């Protein structure tokens, strides 16, 4: 069961001379819901851009499903090949605004499969149904609401049946009910498609409801100061910062 999917070793990330995190180590096991926590500005989004190959770390290695991704002489082609097994839901949805929802979801399929247009149309309809947006094929991203954009982005992230999905603050800007529905959706995807999930979030209810493993990034020390199952962390917090974070400063 607990096969490692992402293995991060000694990862140091910087913008020019400004080091954001130093010597970060963690492992995401297959079928984990792995939560990246931390105060605002500690570098969670930055970490995600490194994990998805957009930003080169200063040093350190990443293994993606056993394959080199950063370090170990990994090339851009290796990263592209690995990212084909991944889906990403961006903070804003990041749908391509000049294309309809159907075209957005179809693009990766056209790109990386030999399916016929009719088959692609069926798959697109299925993915939209899965996220509760059936019938919105011909809408442009500008014509739907923020929450719908997130769901459409999720449908696109799931287009190629990825083995791992990265989420950047999926519930930011959603009302509590939509946020809960999104959590349920994420859990369903994980259960039914056996996906590994890496998620950046501040939402405590989400963290406890869906997280199976986690790390807490600290902006002061620029390292990981805690890790493990969020519910366990809540029971025995290893330090005050994390206790503060998980209990919202109450207690």
């Amino acid at each position, binding site marked *: 069961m607990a096969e490692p999917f992402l293995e991060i070793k000694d990862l140091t990330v910087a913008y020019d001379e400004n080091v954001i995190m130093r010597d970060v180590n963690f492992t995401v096991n297959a079928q984990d819901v792995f939560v990246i926590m931390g105060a605002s500005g500690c570098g969670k989004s930055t970490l995600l851009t490194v994990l998805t*190959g957009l930003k080169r770390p200063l040093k350190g290695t990443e293994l993606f499903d056993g394959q080199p991704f950063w370090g170990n002489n990994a090339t851009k082609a290796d990263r592209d090949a690995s990212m084909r097994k991944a889906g990403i839901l961006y903070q804003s949805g*990041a749908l391509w605004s000049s294309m309809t929802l159907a075209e957005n979801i179809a693009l990766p399929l056209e790109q990386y499969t030999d399916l016929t247009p009719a088959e692609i149309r069926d798959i697109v309809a299925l993915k939209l149904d899965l996220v509760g947006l059936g019938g919105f094929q011909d809408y442009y991203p500008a014509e739907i609401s923020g929450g719908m954009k997130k769901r459409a982005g999720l449908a696109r992230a799931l287009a190629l049946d990825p083995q791992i999905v990265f989420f950047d603050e999926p519930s930011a800007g959603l009302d509590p009910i939509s946020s809960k529905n999104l959590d349920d959706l994420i859990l369903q995807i994980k259960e039914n498609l056996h996906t590994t999930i890496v998620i950046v979030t501040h939402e405590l209810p989400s963290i406890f409801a869906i997280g199976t493993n986690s790390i807490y990034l600290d902006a002061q020390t620029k390292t990981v100061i805690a890790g493990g199952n969020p519910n366990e962390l809540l029971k025995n917090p290893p330090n005050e910062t994390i206790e503060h974070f998980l209990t919202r400063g109450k207690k």
Partner: protein
Amino acid sequence: MSAFAVLQKDEKNRSAELTLSGEWLIKEHPDNRDGIIDEFAAPGFSRVVLNGKGITCWDSQLIAFLVRLLSLCRKNKVDYSLVDFPHGIESLLDLAFAVPERKQEDRSVQKESCLVFLGNIALHSWAATRAAYFFARRTYASFVRFLLKRAVVRKGDILSEIQDAGVKAFPIVSLICFLVGLILAFVGSIQLKMFGAQIYVSSLVAIAVTRVMGAIMGGVIMAGRTGASYAATLGSMQVNEEVDALKTMGISPFDFLVLPRVLALSLMMPLLTIYADLMGIMGGAFVGIFMLGLSPEDYFRMTLKALSMKNIIIGIVHGSVYGVIIALCGCYQGINCGRNASAVGYATTAAVVHSIVWMTVATAILTFMFSVFGV
């Protein structure tokens, strides 16, 4: 009514009392505010009592004033106490002092010597030139992939970009180039009339427009219209993480976004140049026929005589070069746009300015080359 602050000092005990009264609102402030702050900055007392009994109403003005005074007290190690202040002020003050002020790295620009300044400019321009060069090279690589049918690009995108840079630009190009032809003819005719040589207006317009004016006017219009729109579109895609989404999907933004635009504009600019030439000649003819009283046959006969394939081709070469320059400048600014709304504005402006600067440079180089080769 307004705000009052009275400071009473007791020299003997090295103590003081500051009494505040009146309406402490943003739109009012006590006349002696600065004087009191100066007193607190160099205090002749070691204890101070602040009394707020007479305050009738207050807002951030009062809090800001108190924060200023109390931080001076803390700095100068003066004991202070607050008495009789309205409810809520103390907790706001606590809030203001709760987080220690962040020690920022000094962001102010240090004064540099002239040489350092020049050096920085040189380094900066060198870096910018290199970046532009790599951008052009990657676009070229993407073009080669396109020829080998390996580029990820949608045909529909290319076609709609062509339509946008072509047919949709016709009205504005028509208007401007017609007027430019008209102006040329008008200004030329004033001189030529003196010699009774109005008929040569047609030659003047034909040569000027085909050789360079058509291309330049077309270029300036397209820089403002299409180059700016490329920068704005790609820039906001950058802001929305859409470019990231492409990259992580293994789709090169050069193939998918830059190539269709560069192709479209490079293909359309030569055609637009020909069209602009035509419109310019029409503008000239308007003046020649309706204002100088030349007969249409004469006018167009002289125009045909003045037109030469050489000039037309030189114009088209200019136009093609401008097309590539405008598309590259627009896309470069868009792809390298920062992640906020004002960055998009900056990218758009920069796209237009850089396009026009580089068009001028290219014109100079082309003119020089044509004259060296005696064309």
